[in-house]
């Protein structure tokens, strides 16, 4: 499993890519950690993205308690070399200001907004300084509780006192848009998940668009940090119900990269099998949702009926339909017996045939074609700058796939499993539909090969994990059905304060808690570029364009009541909500 970075790449890195680097540390697989000075990060981003064609996977920060913050940039150089570069810089705790990379590339904008809210680090010169998770009109800095330039409506920066009257989503001026500003969301029948897309329409024509997410932030990062490596995977699986296998695999890949992991071959096959079955059901699900979004209930019902067959296979293998719970560090917890593999494999040809009949019927339907051709255009340049991932990027003729570029700890070796990356040059809804339809068949091919291996062999499915060095870092990448999924972990044990430990014990080496885990889901990236796709389309196409990224916004929320005169806030409890509803019905 462990491969060290090629010395020529290290040399290239030291001389050409980051000569400014203070410290070079090769990590496991193709990851290299480079420490730089904070002043250099914007300059380096410009060089990486504009000159060398790298992709910013994610930008995030780690709170190191009294030692300040670490700001972490992860660049993927797979367009040029087999390299993932982790760039780190220290930030002073008393003066937490970092230069903005969002000015250089749009890929960093949402990440910087997140850093600002999570860690209270100010980003200098960011192109979009609005709240990411809090409502736009939220007046205070969530970290310090003080009014700050985080809010658009802080008197210090804008002179506007926040009231409900001057509330506006930015980008759209309320004086000109009052009559034609349509809020699609937070809970709209078109996209049944919590987000708001504001569109300004002229008749049926969308002339401006804006997106606001953050309606159900659950604090999953923190939940995992407090649970430790082994239990964290179960939380990670619950980030998303549809691509739970992708989250499980990305998590274990990341955690296994913290130590010298060996994963048995059989376990790798089982992992691949599950992730690909997951992709098949997710893509079929998407085709159904897309059919529903253009008003075709029949297509929706029939594709979801077929999806049940895939779900049955998953259920037979793992015992579960949604969260499989079989991911373990160093392997998997459940074997797929030879008989089960044989039985499952017998259902594959029938499934393939049903899909071969159905998918062309969906894709070639004349009215469906009228609804998808030329809708929601996204050029290669827009996709690259916006940081699109997964089928959205591949439909814009960009051949990226994490399974090839930075394979997770599963069986994607082209010498053992034959598969291909599907790309399409339509750059619109049609392209995205075709990519997903073809990928379904590629995934079924992989599933078939995995089952063929499993029905012939037996073997170990799990290796014991080893001790994790305190302070070690790792990046785990995986191709989820919606695109590249990113996990970053830093092992605890060096900076974690003693208050996290039980009474009388001190935090020593070998603590089984993480200092930080950061997740960047593919929808996080694709959602950020939805407004670009929306502008210029017809109102009727808004739901399908939004749906074309296969959004996955995780749920769970609580109700907060804010009095905007006194700015007092009070969280409603469940009992209060019940009482309110009873009161309403008795009156």
């Amino acid at each position, binding site marked *: 499993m462990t491969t060290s970075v090629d010395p020529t790449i290290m040399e290239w890195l030291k001389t050409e890519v980051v000569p400014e680097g203070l410290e070079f540390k090769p990590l496991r697989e193709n990851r290299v950690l480079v420490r730089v000075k904070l002043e250099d990060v914007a300059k380096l981003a410009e060089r990486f993205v504009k000159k060398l064609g790298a992709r910013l996977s994610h930008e995030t920060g780690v709170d190191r308690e009294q030692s300040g913050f670490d700001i972490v940039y992860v660049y993927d150089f797979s367009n040029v070399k087999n390299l993932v570069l982790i760039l780190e810089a220290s930030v002073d705790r008393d003066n937490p200001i970092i230069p903005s990379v969002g000015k250089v590339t749009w890929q960093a904008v949402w990440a910087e907004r997140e850093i600002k809210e999570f860690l209270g680090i100010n980003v200098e010169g960011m192109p979009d300084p609005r709240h990411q998770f809090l409502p736009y009109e939220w007046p205070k800095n969530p970290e310090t509780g003080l009014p700050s330039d985080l809010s658009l409506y802080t008197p210090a920066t804008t002179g506007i006192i926040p009231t409900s009257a001057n509330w506006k989503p930015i980008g759209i001026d309320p004086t000109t848009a009052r009559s*034609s*500003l*349509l809020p699609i969301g937070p809970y*709209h*029948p*078109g996209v049944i998940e919590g987000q708001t897309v504001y569109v300004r*329409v002229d*008749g*049926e024509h969308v002339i401006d668009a804006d997106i606001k997410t953050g309606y159900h932030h659950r604090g999953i990062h923190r939940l995992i940090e407090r649970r430790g490596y082994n239990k964290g995977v179960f939380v990670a699986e619950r980030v998303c119900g549809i691509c739970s296998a992708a989250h499980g695999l990305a998590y274990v890949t990341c955690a296994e990269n913290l130590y010298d992991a060996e994963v048995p071959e059989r376990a790798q096959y089982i992992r691949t099998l599950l992730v690909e079955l997951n992709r098949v059901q997710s893509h079929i699900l998407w085709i159904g949702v897309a*059919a*529903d*979004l*253009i*008003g*075709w*209930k*029949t*297509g929706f*019902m*029939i594709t979801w*009926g077929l999806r049940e067959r895939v779900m049955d296979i998953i259920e037979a293998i793992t015992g579960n339909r949604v969260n499989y719970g079989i991911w373990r560090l160093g392997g998997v917890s459940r074997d797929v017996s030879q008989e089960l593999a044989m039985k499952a494999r017998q259902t594959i040809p029938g499934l393939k045939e049903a899909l071969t009949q159905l998918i062309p019927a969906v894709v070639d*339907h004349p*009215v*469906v074609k*009228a*609804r998808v051709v030329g809708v929601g255009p996204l050029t290669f340049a827009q996709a690259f700058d916006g940081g699109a991932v997964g089928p959205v990027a591949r439909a814009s003729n960009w051949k990226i796939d994490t399974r090839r570029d930075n394979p997770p700890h599963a069986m994607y070796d082209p010498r053992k499993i034959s598969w291909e990356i599907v790309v399409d040059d339509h750059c619109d809804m049609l392209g995205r539909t075709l990519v997903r339809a073809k990928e379904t068949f590629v995934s079924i091919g992989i599933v078939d090969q995995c089952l063929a291996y499993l029905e012939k062999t037996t073997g170990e499915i799990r290796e014991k994990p080893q001790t994790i060095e305190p302070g070690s870092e790792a990046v785990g990448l995986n191709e989820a059905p919606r695109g590249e999924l990113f996990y970053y972990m830093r092992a605890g044990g060096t900076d974690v304060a003693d208050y996290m430990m039980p009474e009388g014990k001190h935090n020593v080496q070998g603590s089984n808690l993480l200092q930080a885990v950061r997740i960047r889901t593919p929808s996080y990236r694709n959602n950020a570029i939805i407004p670009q796709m929306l502008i210029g389309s*017809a*109102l*009727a*196409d*808004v*739901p399908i364009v939004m749906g074309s990224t296969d959004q996955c916004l995780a749920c769970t929320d609580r109700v907060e009541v804010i009095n905007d005169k006194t700015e007092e806030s009070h969280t409603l409890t469940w009992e209060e909500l019940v009482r309110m509803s009873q009161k309403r019905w008795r009156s």
Partner: protein
Amino acid sequence: MVDVLFTAVTMLIMVPVALFAGILYVFLFRKLSARFQWRVGPIVRMYKDLAPLLGTSRILQPLYDILKLFGKDTPVPDISRKTIFVASPYLAFLCAFLAIFFIPFPGVPLLSTMEDSLVIASYLLIGAVMFTILGAASSGSPWGAIGARRDVEIFLIYEVGFVVALFSVGLVARSLSLWEIATRPGLPMLILNPFAAVLLFLVILGKLAIKPLDMAEAEAEIVAGPFTEYGGKHLALFQLMKAFLFYDMIALFITLFLGSALSSILWLPAYIIAVIVLLFFITVIQVLHPRFQIAKGMSWYGRWVLVFGLLTAIMVLVLRFYWVV
């Protein structure tokens, strides 16, 4: 006097009959589309263990849905034009309801013997849609406004087809009384002028908002379109209107093109078969298609209405001047 009394009695009987027929049509439509979509749909014979709880059959499910709505709160938005907003559902319902008296049922002429019953029926059917649009436009909701706008756009197309189809039959039959048209001797109009039949069928698709022409009520795009702000008994009235409209349109089609099926009550089985065939075609079209985007849908619909409108007009000229009917 006896005639008047007979008409009055049949009209009284017709109210529950038409209501039941409309509900049954909606049920058949729902059941058929459910079967096409691998679903169960409203259950005809309830499972034995659930029968004590849910009744022996759910054929009247569309009626139960409407009754349920009557029992709910009826909100009226503050920013709406309240008088129009509240009056619209009643007027729309009234139009669709009154139309049943001007369209004959097998063996029962009702008011269709009146000289201009064709004109009156067509006005009432237009009125039902007009008041729906009016209510949506006065609701103050952007979704309602967009729904109303789309409704107007599509209304402008199918009303042209509607008028052409209706009066083509009237011109050939040399009468504007639906009963006279229906009981006219000779070949049925479906054979004489099939283009007009296709044209009226296209109009039915638009008028009943059958996919791919349900842009006005596009539920995933613009919430519920014209009905966004309506709830409670107002929405129930709109749904009742829909049931009656279903009955009206299908009865009108049969009257105009398969008139001999109405001459006697003994023709009822033939009437029922015609209804089922029409419903089957409507359902197949509904389940086979996604919704058009409004601009593309308009051009598609407009094109076919225009083509069949012209063919109908040519056919009428031929029939009227060169064919002794």
